[in-house]
């Protein structure tokens, strides 16, 4: 269990983390979501007592981090930066950590096996691929067999197999009753892994909700229509009391209607339809809507601006993943 209370971090005039209060509970995977620069890594560093909060507190099982006797046996963390010495072998990188917390050597072999690095245990970690480095970081987090695990963007740079592996690992760890706290800026990834969701933007808490509630509240379902007689179609829809949104590219979107109802309506009025499909706005869209006001590093068309990766600027116009699409021509 991790508890944050009024956690705040200012760098000069910039507030990176702004009065964050929430709890991370055991037994579930808690996703920590926010766009680039939202303050996820800063929050995690403060949880580990690496950065000093400007104000506020973090408690790990009711204690301050510095009060933990052998911290690796309580909490294991994978930070976003490669936090290992490249000139040291994977085994020795883990061994020196193990020794500082009196973890037996056998456990080093065990976690190396767990993440599938036994064959390269004696190799310098400098030569590791991104995925291997990530696995080594996960091995170091698991070293003390801790109750709490914290991963900062663990799937970054992993191949699909690796992503699958981490996803299952986190779920398995949570099922054992551990507290799993994982950051990401990919809603789609979180939707598959997390049971609980904490969303921040510009350091502020935007949502603290269960994944199911988030999906329920945020995935708008609507019907997508395309017709060569767009003007008439719109008038007909209006006349029948539907709210129509023009989505560009000759696409109309209608909320709160079924494909059956709209197809019949078009047929009654002799309208040609090129598309009639039920759509569900993606969670990614919902997430971007939620954080829209809080996105710090926008991409501006051709403007070459900063290096930070940013979500596309025109997310409003894009259609999300289609679930349960039904199409019929008329």
């Amino acid at each position: 269990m991790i508890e944050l209370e009024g956690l705040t971090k200012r760098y000069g005039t910039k507030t990176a983390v702004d009065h964050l209060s929430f709890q991370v509970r055991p037994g579930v995977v808690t996703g920590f979501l926010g766009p680039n620069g939202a303050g996820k890594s800063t929050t995690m560093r403060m949880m580990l007592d690496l950065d000093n909060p400007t104000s506020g507190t973090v408690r790990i099982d009711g204690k301050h981090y510095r009060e933990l006797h052998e911290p690796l046996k309580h909490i294991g963390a994978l930070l976003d930066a490669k936090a290992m010495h490249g000139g040291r072998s994977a085994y020795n990188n883990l061994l020196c950590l193990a020794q500082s917390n009196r973890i037996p050597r056998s456990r080093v072999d065990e976690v190396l096996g767990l993440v599938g690095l036994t064959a390269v245990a004696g190799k310098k970690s400098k030569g590791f691929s991104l995925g291997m480095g990530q696995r080594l970081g996960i091995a170091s987090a698991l070293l003390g067999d801790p109750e709490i695990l914290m991963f900062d963007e663990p799937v970054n740079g992993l191949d699909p197999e690796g992503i699958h592996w981490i996803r299952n690992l986190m779920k398995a760890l949570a099922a054992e009753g551990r507290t799993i706290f994982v950051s990401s800026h990919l809603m789609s990834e979180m939707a598959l892994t997390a049971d609980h969701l904490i969303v921040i933007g510009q350091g502020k808490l935007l949502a603290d909700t269960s994944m199911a509630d988030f999906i329920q509240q945020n995935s708008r379902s609507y019907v997508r229509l395309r017709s060569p007689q767009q003007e008439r179609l719109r008038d007909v829809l209006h006349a029948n009391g539907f709210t129509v949104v023009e989505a560009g590219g000759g696409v109309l979107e209608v909320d709160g209607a079924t494909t059956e109802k709209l197809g019949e309506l078009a047929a009654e009025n002799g309208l040609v339809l090129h598309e009639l499909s039920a759509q569900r706005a993606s969670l990614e869209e919902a997430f971007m809507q939620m954080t829209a006001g809080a996105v710090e590093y926008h991409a501006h068309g051709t403007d070459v601006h900063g290096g930070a990766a940013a979500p596309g600027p025109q997310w409003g116009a894009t259609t999300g993943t289609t679930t349960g699409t039904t199409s019929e021509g008329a």
Partner: protein
Amino acid sequence: MTAPAHPQHAPAPHAYVSPIPVRRAHLGDALASEWTKIRSVRSTMWTLGVMILLMVVIGLGVAAIAASSEVSMDEETALGFGFFGMLPASICVITLGVLTIASEYGTGMIRTTLTACPSRARVLTAKAIVFFLLVFTVTTVVATLVALAQVALVDAAEPSADEWLRATVGTGAYLAALGLLSLAIGTIIRHSAGAITVMIGLLLLPLVAALFMFSVALKSVQEWLFTYAIPSQMIALYSAQPPFGEDGPAGWEPLLIMGGTAAVVLAGAYALLNSRDV
């Protein structure tokens, strides 16, 4: 603030507890960890290897030259030749001292280290002890072997017990203290190249600067620099009387000065390490 979403991931009745028994970690654990760290990177072998090579080759070379020359050395002992190996060795010690901590900042390892051991003072203490003992042992052993060879090779005055002690244990302690100063500077600067540059500047610049102080007004500054520059202090370590002029440190005093400086800067490093973000 609501119940978890998927029933199959319902919270386990009891939170997980690590099966590995927990007790209070202490300095001994940190020492074991730092010893593993320092012995498992190649830079340690390189810097110490080069240091040993320099001390041996230069020490024996100088002794051989002195032995073949006609200049008589009735007044002095052959131990003073140790200085010639000590100066280049100090550059290796500086490098190793800085790398012991700054490489952790360079690689990001420091975050992992401090997560494992949140007592920053303990981490720095363990690093300092392991580093000091390693450098002290190696340099003392090498300095002793080189001194024995020098005394055997060169026809000069017989060294006293105190002179033997200073040329061996004194040399080792002086270099190890210089290394501690480098470790402290590395902790403060947190950047390998930057800290090594600062330390080498500290080692050599005072003498170079003093060479260019022609003006009469700067005479006293020049003398002070000549007396207290690190290479001059190393020479003074081998001599019972102040080697330059009437006053200035001699004998064991340079070691006290270096030890004191290292302690003060190390105290600053502790304070900064404790208060700064990582």
